[in-house]
């Protein structure tokens, strides 16, 4: 055997090596004949002839062999597909659904979770929070001076910037139009690494106080306001009483901080009103220097902050920082939902796979005769397995092509259904997705094709059968039943998940929020943070609007609130009660600012004391909820206590408790009410939420309300008019979408499992025709045949169901954070799943069992 060692070091092209060897041997022969070495080599080269040509010819031999085998397999695969159109269509459709759904979910994961943010080196971007080190205030926004300090002193970040948003009215047209503005700290575009598509970035003098007014506008706003005209660059926007030159237009996909922002304007750090270190303005973002990791950047900013703490004992010494990747703050919890869906849809694909494997097993068993003949004609097992596999690959590729269509449809549906999810607009089909789908198809083909192909081509089994004219496959066939059982198991797992989510969504629908959202319309009126220089004016402006609304016919009440009730938001704050601060018993509350009339408009019951009145200089009226009164104020004698914020603030609050109100789910419908205080002040910010209670359908009042506000405030725009119930429902978009999709997958899964059960049982019935015929002819009661088949199907379903429940119990742990009002081990759900599954399994088994039991024995035996 020493003559045939495997040589692994084939540095050169093996054909070239073989030719070179041949020439060397010719040279050696020539030398042996007495030529001198140079002459010998020259002659050999001449004698050998066109060396390159030989190489080319040899290569063509191999290429054409490859092409030939490819052609053969393609042709045989096509013949196979066309010959059994029903079977092929079933497989292609199953795969199209399986691969399509999988691809669709993967495209969402790819766009939202995996791909970096749509900025150059997006993974270098971080969000920086400031926290009150004693946890007395939940505000994380940063004063302009501190932002500038961070930028100057940080060594790990190449730049720090930030933004806050204003909702304004643009007045150059006939009617005021709402415009959403991001006021940005210096270096905003540099940190994001984006340049305007047209025009230029802010010049240094435009970022200084008193410099020229300049704005950048979004692509969409450019289209909407200027119809995409390049002349926009020399135009001006009138915002309030100021004129701003449009200096640049941002690229189409640029939507930071969010898709609502239409214009960006500088917020100069040297402005006199921007000097206080206890201001809380900016959402801060930074870019790490290349090669710096997030923990390093976090440590760096923390060090910088502690140095600032030494310099400014108040407030910097009491602040800590938190630095996290910007992407995680944008994607947030959606990643969890998406991975959950991806897991589910992959289980679905596995079910589809085992379904197809079972179909293929049955088919290869029917083809035993054909395979035996091919063996006897000298085909090798490898060739036959390859042929069987290529048939499956052909089917899988067709399935994947159809699946891409499914995924494209799903992507469109996703834009409609999930438009509010972060980065939803980035979900699209691209080459990555097509490649993924192709990989999926090949993987699927191997997974479901390899085993049947190997099993069907076992020589011992096949050759013995070649002589017989009748095929006689084993009727026990444990493999087929294992596959069906696996499908049932996976389907039950999915059903458990879907059942839990459905029950949770149902529980959410029955939550009593503690306020009445019906017949309440919400809206906002544009304003600017700049107005807060004169808070009294803002307050009287808002009260004037409220009074105007209250006198409108059909309106039962009107109020403002800083945050909408029932929409996830929380603002934890530590309080001093009656001037005392007990370090052992901290008084923490969710602080909400509402106008007088709020509890009446929302029908929150007043339990004790009286409704609040508008603030008088220096003090607020405060209402507390029942939880707060019971926990901190000793129950009903709450009125008269004095509450102050414990943390130093540029906006000190001193409030007198006037009354106790019922607990309401202010912080979100899924949150049990926590201790809450309501400070009565109509102008928590320049553009609070207005809540107007009306008779009848809220949206029918929308026009009247809009007109009334226009009469009162002709230079302001009214926006975001919608029923409060819409907000509450929108807050569950992700929850509903996730539940809907998982339910869809589970229904598909159980349908596939039933098809598998039905198909396998039918096949068994066909194989056992003769046996059943004989038994019937010998007088066996039909009923026994029927129950025999039925029992066979149900037994597999029951075993699969038990395994599925076990798997469901394990996997449902991942759902825990997404469930509301139902445990992940909810017995009702599990029992329901079992009942449903056994019911459909019985239905799927009944038809094949009946067919077997009502066989005509004469007919079968005659055919034999």
């Amino acid at each position, binding site marked *: 055997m020493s*003559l045939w*060692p495997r040589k692994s070091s084939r540095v050169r092209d093996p054909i070239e090596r*073989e030719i070179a060897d041949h020439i060397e041997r010719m040279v050696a022969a020539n030398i042996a004949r007495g030529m001198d070495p140079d002459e010998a080599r020259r002659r050999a080269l001449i004698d050998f002839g066109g060396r390159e040509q*030989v190489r080319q*010819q*040899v290569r063509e031999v*191999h290429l054409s062999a490859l092409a030939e085998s490819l052609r053969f397999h393609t042709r045989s695969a096509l013949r196979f597909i066309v010959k059994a159109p029903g079977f092929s269509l079933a497989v292609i459709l199953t795969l199209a659904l399986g691969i399509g759904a999988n691809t669709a979910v993967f495209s969402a994961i790819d766009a939202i979770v995996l791909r970096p943010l749509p900025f150059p080196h997006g993974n270098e971007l971080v969000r920086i929070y400031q926290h009150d080190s004693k946890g007395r205030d939940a505000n994380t926004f940063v004063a302009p001076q501190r932002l500038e300090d961070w930028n100057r002193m940080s060594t790990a970040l190449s730049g720090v910037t930030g933004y806050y948003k204003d909702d304004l009215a643009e007045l150059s047209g006939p009617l005021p139009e709402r415009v959403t503005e991001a006021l940005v700290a210096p270096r905003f575009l540099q940190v994001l690494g984006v340049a305007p598509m047209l025009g230029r970035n802010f010049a240094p003098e435009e970022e200084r106080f008193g410099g020229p007014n300049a704005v950048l506008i979004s692509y969409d706003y450019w289209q909407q306001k200027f119809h995409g005209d390049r002349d926009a660059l020399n135009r001006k926007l009138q915002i309030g009483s100021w004129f701003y030159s449009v200096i640049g237009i941002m690229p189409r996909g640029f939507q930071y901080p969010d898709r609502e922002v239409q214009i960006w304007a500088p917020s100069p750090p040297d402005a006199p009103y921007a000097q206080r270190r206890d201001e809380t303005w900016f959402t801060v973002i930074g870019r790490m220097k290349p090669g710096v990791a997030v923990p390093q950047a976090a440590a760096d900013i923390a060090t910088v902050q502690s140095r600032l703490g030494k310099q400014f004992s108040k407030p910097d010494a009491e602040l800590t920082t938190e630095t996290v990747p910007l992407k995680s703050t944008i994607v947030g919890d959606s990643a969890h939902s998406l991975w959950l869906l991806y897991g589910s849809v992959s289980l679905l694909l596995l079910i589809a796979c085992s379904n197809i494997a079972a179909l293929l097993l049955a088919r290869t068993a029917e083809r035993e005769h054909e395979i035996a003949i091919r063996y006897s004609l000298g085909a090798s097992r490898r060739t036959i397995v390859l042929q069987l596999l290529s048939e499956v690959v052909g089917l899988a590729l067709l399935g994947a092509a159809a699946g891409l269509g499914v995924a494209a449809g799903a992507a469109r549906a996703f834009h409609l259904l999930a438009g509010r999810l972060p980065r939803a607009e980035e979900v699209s089909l691209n080459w990555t997705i097509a490649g993924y789908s192709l990989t999926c198809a090949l993987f699927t083909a191997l997974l479901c094709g390899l085993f049947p192909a190997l099993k069907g081509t076992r020589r011992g089994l096949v050759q013995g059968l070649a002589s017989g004219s009748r095929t006689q496959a084993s009727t026990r066939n444990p493999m087929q039943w294992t596959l069906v059982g696996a499908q049932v198991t996976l389907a039950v797992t999915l059903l458990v998940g879907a059942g839990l989510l459905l029950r949770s969504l149902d529980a959410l629908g029955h939550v009593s929020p503690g306020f009445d959202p019906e017949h309440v319309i919400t809206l906002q009126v544009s304003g600017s943070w700049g107005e807060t220089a004169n808070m009294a004016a803002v307050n009287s402006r808002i009260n004037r609007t409220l009074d105007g609304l209250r006198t409108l016919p059909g309106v039962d009440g009107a109020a403002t609130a800083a945050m909408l009730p029932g929409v996830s938001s929380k603002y934890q704050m530590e309080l001093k009660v009656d001037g005392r601060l007990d370090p052992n018993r901290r008084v923490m509350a969710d602080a909400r600012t509402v106008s007088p009339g709020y509890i009446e408009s929302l029908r929150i019951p007043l339990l004790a004391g009286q409704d609040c009145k508008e603030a008088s200089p220096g003090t607020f009226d405060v209402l507390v909820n029942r939880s707060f009164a019971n926990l901190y104020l000793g129950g009903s004698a709450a009125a008269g206590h004095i509450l102050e914020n414990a943390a130093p603030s540029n906006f000190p609050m001193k409030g007198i408790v006037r009354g106790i109100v019922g607990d309401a789910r202010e912080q979100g419908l899924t949150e049990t009410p926590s201790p809450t205080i309501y400070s009565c002040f109509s102008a928590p910010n320049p553009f609070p939420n207005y809540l107007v209670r009306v008779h009848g359908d809220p949206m029918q009042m929308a026009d009247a309300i809009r007109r009334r506000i226009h009469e009162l405030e002709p230079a302001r725009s009214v926006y975001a008019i919608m029923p409060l119930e819409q907000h509450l429902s929108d807050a569950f978009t992700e929850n509903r979408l996730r539940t809907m999709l998982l339910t869809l997958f589970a229904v598909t899964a159980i349908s596939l499992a039933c098809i598998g059960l039905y198909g396998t049982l039918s096949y068994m019935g066909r194989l056992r025709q003769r046996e059943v015929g004989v038994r019937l002819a010998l007088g066996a009661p039909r009923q026994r045949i029927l129950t025999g088949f039925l029992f066979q199907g149900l037994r597999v379903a029951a075993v699969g169901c038990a395994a599925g429940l076990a798997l469901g119990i394990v996997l449902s742990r991942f759902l825990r954070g997404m469930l509301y009002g139902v445990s992940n081990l909810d017995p009702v759900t599990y029992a329901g799943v079992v009942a449903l599954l056994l019911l459909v399994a019985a239905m799927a088994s009944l038809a094949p069992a009946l067919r077997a039991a009502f066989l005509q024995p004469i007919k079968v035996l005659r055919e034999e």
Partner: protein
Amino acid sequence: MTPMEKTDLLQGTLDLLILKVVAFGPVHGYGIAQRIRQISNDVLQVQQGSLYPALHRLEERGWLAADWGESDNGRQARFYKLSAKGRRQLAAEEKSWNRLSEAVQLILNTAQ
């Protein structure tokens, strides 16, 4: 006698000659060409331009197996040997060649 050119060989004849030569034992391409020449007394000289495509074609069909090995002079060479399938093919082709040449001989004899 002048050597015959490649074009003078009947289609398929070269394949038969290669299979026959390789049947004696593992041999490299140069060796095959040499043996064909020697055994035919220099009548048949196979051109490299036909030899190598033919060898690789026979390999693709599974009649020859090839692998790198060390030859007598210590050089690495690609050795060809006959597969089981090739052996059957050789037997079949020898048989049909013999029938063909007998038939041709018969006609030539009768015509004389």
